[in-house]
């Protein structure tokens, strides 16, 4: 049995011809490429062959820009500002390639007010934005940005330094908002959160998904949200230490909310699955660092190719 399988397999491998991937329909290739995320498309995939280069130039490819799972880069933080600068540049470049088709963008630590401004000026079709750990984005930068996007349906801001003011401006400017994650300043300095809850209750009636883990929400605030958001199906209030959730309240919650989250969003994706030893990332970053250093040293050194 096993020997016949082996021989079959051997025969199978010897007879299999190399399938020509370039003959696959474009959307099939795109389906694979998009899963790589923006950094790998720009730094790698598009350099594979002219066909892929063309696919990666197509604005349709850039309807989504995902720059979230960048652990290999984050691990290279000894380069500090270089890393942030580099990813911000790639992100701007990808936004430019989208030619206004951008609908969904995910950004991690490298996000800045300046980058938001760049997006705001070029992505009028944006429906969804996810910011993770963008501590360089200020309330002012965010408010400026969100005022230009009345069509946003999904906003996810995690591990930020944004305050109530940002939440307020979201409420005022995004009447279509269906999905919100808001995790800001109070994570470090808990204060009462009833005012924030009341902003959500008053200005975001269409929410179906709400993730406000780790704040000082009270039962009063929670019920004002539940009353005002009849469509709410998914709620994460984990780590809200002011909430005294007894058995009866928990029952009400479970009856009311289909998906009551008890696990921190994103932690899974962020902790696992990344090959920190990835050689090309290291090489690339080294190259970049060298480039920056040499261009600082000698501005005219153009003749040398990398």
């Amino acid at each position, binding site marked *: 049995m096993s020997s016949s399988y082996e021989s*079959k*397999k051997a025969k*199978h*491998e010897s007879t*299999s011809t*190399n*399938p*020509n*991937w*370039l003959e*696959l329909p474009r959307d*099939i290739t795109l*389906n*694979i*490429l998009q*899963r*790589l995320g923006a950094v*790998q498309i*720009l*730094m*790698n*995939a598009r*350099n*594979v*062959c*002219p066909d892929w*280069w063309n696919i990666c130039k197509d604005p349709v490819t850039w309807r989504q820009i995902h720059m979230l799972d960048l652990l*290999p880069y984050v691990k290279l933080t000894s380069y500090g500002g270089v890393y942030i*600068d*580099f990813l911000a*540049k*790639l992100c*701007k*470049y990808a936004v430019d390639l989208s030619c206004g088709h951008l609908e969904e963008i995910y950004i991690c630590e490298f996000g800045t007010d*300046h980058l938001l401004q760049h997006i705001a000026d070029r992505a009028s079709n944006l429906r969804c934005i996810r910011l993770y750990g963008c501590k360089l984005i200020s309330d002012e930068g965010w408010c400026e940005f969100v005022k230009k996007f009345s069509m946003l349906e999904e906003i996810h801001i995690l591990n930020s330094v944004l305050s109530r003011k940002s939440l307020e401006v979201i409420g005022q400017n995004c009447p279509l908002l269906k999905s919100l994650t808001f995790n800001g300043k109070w994570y470090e300095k808990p204060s009462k959160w009833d005012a924030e809850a009341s902003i959500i209750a008053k200005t975001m009636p269409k929410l179906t998904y709400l993730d406000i883990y780790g704040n000082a929400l009270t039962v009063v605030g929670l019920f004002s949200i539940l009353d005002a958001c009849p469509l709410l199906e998914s709620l994460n209030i984990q780590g809200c230490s002011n909430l005294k959730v007894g058995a009866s309240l928990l029952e009400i919650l479970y009856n009311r909310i289909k998906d009551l989250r008890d696990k921190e969003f994103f932690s899974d994706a962020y902790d696992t699955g*990344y*090959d920190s030893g*990835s*050689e*090309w*990332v290291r090489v690339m970053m080294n*190259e*970049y660092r060298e*480039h920056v250093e040499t*261009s*600082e040293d000698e501005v005219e050194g153009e003749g040398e*190719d*990398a």
Partner: protein
Amino acid sequence: MAEEVSSQMNSLSISETNPSSSATISLVSGDDIVFKVEPTIAKEMETVQSFIDETDGKITTIPLPNISSHDLPYVIEYCEKSIAGKITKEFEAEFVKKLNNEEVKELFLAANYLNIKKLLDFLSQVIADRIANKSVEYVRRYFGIENDFTPEEEAKLREELAWTFTGVDPDDEDEN
């Protein structure tokens, strides 16, 4: 008497080929191995199903010259799980563990040919995972793609990369 029997047999054979009946479908691999599957499995394979529909269900033996007898059982297994609603992360992880790079690619092409959306999406992710964080040369080898950039294109490509590295943003440059 003899006539009656033959007419009975006729009605029997008609009911067997009726599309609504549960006659099994024979899928014939490129190397001429026959796999008998339930019609529900065939439904998962859009290409097969449309073939059956086009012939009003009269033809139940379907040649799949592009798919080997090595790959077809994997495809059938995935479709079976899909119908049973048992596609879990665990199943997918186990499923993919059995497959080497060559097999993943062939299954991908089979899924594309048979037009099985779920399997295609799943394998797209598998392939993306396998080429993630790999060098350009690795990706070329993986797909068997020649580096057919012309020298001019190569130069342009380098230029483009340099663009990315230096950044022509007037805000960022020339300040320090």
